[in-house]
């Protein structure tokens, strides 16, 4: 039973991590931007949900109606002010400079959060955070179940947006070849701005669930970013489904090793799995070859 519980915990928590990593894989897949500010943006999303719940009495899930658009606007601003200005660089320099630019965003945002909220740890509160569903003798925390459903819904909606809409065709065209897309009339610059906005916006949802399941402060993003990068590399950079698969794989492997053996060995075993997968599938579980 304890192994079943560990696997189910891993799947549910994996959904939360997928939600946090989705923006990272989206912005890389479409824009070749490795947004190293993703971790601290998750924390920003968590703080926004915390403020709305603690001071506005707004349920964290309802609060997403405010925090998601707010972070979309922030994403658009980051893209217009920083990322867009680097587009004239060669591909290599663009990728490097985008990492530095988003690192700057990370440092500034973390500093601002420390100034605004201090170093104290807080947590998003809701009446259902400590409740569980009992299923085949296992206790499934409601917040993780809701978080997983939210992840599945949002990632599914994003996939529909990317593969079933005109905008999605533009995005995929830009992803495959920016120059050719521009030549056939795709407004690549606008598409990039919207995609970056969406990538940051979806982070608000991940941040909310992260904040409801973890005590956090402004520095918590530093711990997150390495895990999120690992997830998108395992899942395949640019793949929504890959983000979910990578996150679930990470959490299930670590959980089972923690239960069966020792939590201390869990990161090592996962690293071995990661290397093994990348040796067999260099583009990750569900990734495609990245254009040079």
């Amino acid at each position: 039973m304890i192994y079943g519980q560990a696997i189910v915990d891993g799947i549910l928590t994996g959904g939360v991590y997928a939600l946090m990593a989705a923006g990272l894989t989206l912005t890389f897949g479409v824009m070749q931007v490795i947004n190293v500010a993703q971790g601290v943006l998750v924390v920003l999303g968590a703080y926004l949900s915390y403020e709305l719940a603690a001071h506005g009495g707004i349920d964290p899930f309802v609060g997403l109606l405010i925090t998601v658009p707010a972070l979309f606007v922030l994403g658009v601003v980051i893209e217009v002010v920083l990322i867009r200005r680097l587009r004239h660089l060669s591909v290599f320099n663009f990728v490097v400079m985008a990492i530095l630019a988003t690192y700057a965003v990370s440092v500034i945002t973390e500093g601002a959060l420390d100034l605004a909220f201090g170093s104290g740890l807080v947590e998003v509160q809701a009446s259902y955070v400590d409740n569980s569903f009992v299923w085949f003798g296992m206790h499934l925390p409601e917040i993780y179940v809701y978080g997983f459903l939210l992840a599945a819904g949002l990632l599914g909606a994003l996939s529909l947006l990317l593969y079933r809409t005109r905008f999605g065709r533009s995005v995929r065209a830009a992803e495959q070849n920016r120059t050719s897309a521009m030549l056939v009339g795709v407004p690549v610059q606008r598409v990039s701005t919207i995609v970056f906005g969406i990538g940051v916006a979806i982070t608000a949802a991940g941040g909310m669930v992260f904040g409801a399941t973890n005590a956090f402060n402004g520095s918590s993003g530093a711990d997150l970013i390495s895990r999120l990068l690992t997830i998108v590399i395992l899942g395949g950079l640019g793949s929504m489904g890959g983000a979910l698969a990578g996150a679930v794989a990470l959490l299930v492997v670590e959980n089972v090793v923690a239960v069966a053996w020792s939590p201390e060995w869990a990161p090592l075993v996962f690293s071995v799995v990661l290397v093994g997968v990348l040796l067999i599938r260099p583009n990750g579980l569900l990734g495609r070859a990245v254009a040079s």
Partner: protein
Amino acid sequence: MKRTPIVLLTASALLSLTLAACGSSASSPAAAASSSAPILVGADLSLSGDFATEGVPYAHGYDLWANYVNSHGGLLGRKVSMKILSDASNQAEVTTNYQDLISVDHASLLFGPVSTLFTVPAAREAQRFGYALVEGAGGGPVVFSSGLTNVFDTGLTVSGTVVPFAKYLAALPASERPTTAAYATENDPFDVPETQGAQQVLQAAGIKTVFNKTFPQEVADYTPIADQIAATHAQVVILGAGDLSVLSPFVHAFIQQGYNPEAFYTANGANPPQFLPAIGGVGNANGIVTSGSWFPGYQNAQSEAFVKLYLKTYGGSAANIDPSVAEGYSVGQVVQAAVEATHSLDQAKIIAYLHSGATIQTVLGPVRFDKLGENTAASAFLFQWQGGQYVSADPPQAGVQGLVFPKPAWGAS
């Protein structure tokens, strides 16, 4: 090729910004050397990152002490100037920071970092230059077995933390005594021996170990560890949590699993002001036990004066003063006592004084160091959340009966 300088310029700018963010006020070596110039006190603290929850209140404690000294005639008639460098919770930064404080800033006195992980490299660097290093939150056994003769810890030793609670459980009548215990601890040089100390006492009393695991300092998900403990139905849980970010997931997971241990001890994270808001209110806190060397209600003249000074400086309420502020303040008091007793800033004299067995009165109570630098006179308290209040249950403060056992159900008032 033309674009390369842009990359370098941006990288340099970011590096400069990061480095600038690490430091605070400065003081020239010439000023430090002058007999009328302020005395520069240097310290490394974790002002960001994983240890910031302790590092920031420590900085408040150091600053509060400096402000108090300056408003009361200074030290040896000279003002005190604090320079705190942040290690950003990165062990590699600690040595560099103390090198800078000693070699570049020519600090006259050194205060220690938080965490045992940082104390050893800090004390080694200080010892290389003959400095004393007084600290309050980094006294794991490894510090005192490293051959260091210059480090002094005002805080509790490992044996003063959870062991009194383990002895309390072991001394319960056989009919009331728990029979099973679970141990989970972060891989930290203070928390691991602390948990092992409890295990030795409880096993000797016949309390069977049903779970015993160590986990790394950064875990993606604590739920499976907590769920596994819940599945054992252990009556006692001893958790070596580094801070609230570790403790909180265990509390939530136990509640979600419907598991309520009869005794729940945590090494860290249960103190005000952050604990209650994080875990969803007093009902989820009641019965949880932790240990420490200070609380706002401590009946000690220095402590009472400290509380007044804190409230005057920072505002708020006494109940919400972070104990780390008091611990940091005690470091300043100890160094001050040594400087005033020796009438000098000579490090050899300061070290000799601190090793002399002299008793120094501080906000934490009496401090007296043994030959290793451990505080043998430290006041040890077992704290427990009772009726929504964080109280000293052993020794019991006024109006408190003692430790409550078994722990009330989750959500009980």
